[in-house]
């Protein structure tokens, strides 16, 4: 049996304040095969972005990754030196952010930024490097790529900038790309174009994706597997069909039910009352318990352990019924 491309075990990241270290995410277990697309779904405060940054090694003070292993092709990233990690980033693992201007330097031409991204990891003759840049831009659908190389980021529209950011991420043919809400700020038709490109690239190059979002619809259409996060923990995971058609965790069910698309027009939507707790406002047990219609006192005091069926897992003392076999 081959080792998975990425295996995260028992990851915990905390944020330090005077009162103590509040766990932003805990007990994170993720398993990703080569070429697989995993959707990491959650609302604000669920810890989905912190998870992505923790895997990528980008947690800075006052944050700290305190526990767990991040096994990339069998190697624990947390044990690597800063220099070794730097070599991996941009080469084998890349990251795309919600705001493309986090990737793109507004005062440098695209050409310089792309050449720099290649140069940091391998020495290619300039002509060859330029050729690769042009190919990358063409692959994300930028028209007249040779000319656009000389442009500055502000000369592109929002959707185009994001595509350039994706092209940069793809330059060195990474094995894994972590995408933190890359299409949230974009219009629906532009989002469609970007999802199309991502799908093409992943199928052509066998790149694995972790797609972080709050939009269940995008995950449904794009991903193979999904992990639902709430209050810093993964509360449910499985294939997209399993989780979205037959959720076991009450939060997943509540989320699906509250979508307007799932409701009859004109009728009240099923809503989840209350709001997600802040880092310091969680209960010792299941973070969703205060809002959960099925919660028992045990749910508040005790953290539910993971119930695992092959390929499927959830954390709940009072899960929903399994679908009839």
């Amino acid at each position, binding site marked *: 049996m081959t080792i998975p491309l990425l295996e995260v075990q028992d990851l915990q990241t*905390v944020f*330090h*304040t*005077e*009162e*103590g*270290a*509040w*766990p932003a995410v805990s007990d994170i277990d993720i398993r990703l095969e080569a070429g697989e697309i995993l959707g990491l779904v959650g609302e604000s405060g669920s810890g989905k972005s912190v998870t992505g940054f923790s895997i990528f090694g980008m947690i800075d*003070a*006052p944050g*700290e990754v*305190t526990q767990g292993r991040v096994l990339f092709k069998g190697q624990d990233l947390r044990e690597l030196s800063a220099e070794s990690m730097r070599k991996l980033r941009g080469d084998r693992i890349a990251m795309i952010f919600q705001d493309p201007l986090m990737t793109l330097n507004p005062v440098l031409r695209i050409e310089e930024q792309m050449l720099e991204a290649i140069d940091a990891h391998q020495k290619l003759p300039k002509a060859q490097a330029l050729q690769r840049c042009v190919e990358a831009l063409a692959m994300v659908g930028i028209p007249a790529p040779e000319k656009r190389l000389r442009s500055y980021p502000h000369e592109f529209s929002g959707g185009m900038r994001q595509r350039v950011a994706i092209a940069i991420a793809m330059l060195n043919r990474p094995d894994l790309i972590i995408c933190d809400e890359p299409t949230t700020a974009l219009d629906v038709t532009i989002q469609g174009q970007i999802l199309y490109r991502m799908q093409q690239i992943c199928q052509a190059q066998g790149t694995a994706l972790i797609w972080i979002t709050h939009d269940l619809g995008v995950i449904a259409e794009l991903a193979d597997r999904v992990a639902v996060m709430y209050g810093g923990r993964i509360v449910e995971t499985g294939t997209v069909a399993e989780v979205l058609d037959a959720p076991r965790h009450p939060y997943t069910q509540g989320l699906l039910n509250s979508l307007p698309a799932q409701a009859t027009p004109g009728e009240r939507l099923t809503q989840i*009352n*209350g*709001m997600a707790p802040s880092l*310091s*406002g*969680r*209960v*010792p047990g299941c973070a969703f*318990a*205060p*809002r*959960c*219609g099925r*919660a028992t006192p045990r749910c*508040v*005091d005790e953290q539910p352990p993971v119930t695992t069926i092959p390929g499927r897992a959830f954390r709940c003392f009072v899960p929903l019924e399994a679908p009839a076999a």
Partner: protein
Amino acid sequence: MMQPDKPLMTIDPSKRAQPLQDTPQRRAILKKLRSKPSVKGAVIALVLLLAVVLLAPFLSPQNPYDLGALDLMDGRLKPMSEAASGMTYWLGTDDQGRDMLSAILHGLRISLMVGLSAVVLATIIGSLVGLVAAYFGGWVDTVLMRIVDFILGFPTILVALVLLAILGRGVDKVVIAIVMVQWAHYARIMRGRALQERKKEYIEAAKNLGFPGWRIMTRHLLPNCMGPVMVFATIQIANAIVLEATLSFLGVGVPITEPSLGLLIANGFQYLMSGDYWISMFPGLALLALILSINLIGDRLREALDPRK
């Protein structure tokens, strides 16, 4: 009526999860977090400064403005000399027989008064102009900003010299001279901020609710634009003090009978070469210390006022 926004289960606050107290890097991280300078130290320094300055008349051994109390025979005495009356001249005397310590304390007082009042006045005038220009836009903005540009085109000292030549000497005239040029800076800063803030939706909401223009300007726009102006003002206090010192040094600021630090330094200049260093040096050091403290306090306050709540 909608159900109040209560979670389905009320959780006793004491039953909340507790944070971790021990992690591999907690100590290092906390050290970094705590090293951020606190505002408390700065405020204490400020209060001390203000106290010394306000209490100057009571603290100083001698009233340096009372010409009758001065004894020319006591002129140019070294620090720690004794006076005929038994008083110790801790920092020596100047050529008029004035106790340097008392003169410095009073001089500090004048410097601080000038600095603070010039800044307060310039802030009020400049903020008003900037606010009106930003809120009304159009030709109002154009006219006001061209005036601001015009004034900013003149070097402050030059304008101050001309104004003081016209107005005569005196602490209040110095303040007026400083304000007449400085307000333009505040106007620009306020206008820049107000232009940004004016586009925000709570201003649109206020218009949508039919509030009159002056109310939107003063109740909604102004309080949210004070930040950068306050930051600038704290820097400008030191500048105003230096400006006053310069003008007095040049002989156009305060009258000779009520010397400020600048004038004291000027007075002592001629004696530097003959070895009576204390007449210039101590006022100079005092001025330096004052500017340094104000800048440090200003730095701390700026960090505290930083909008990254």
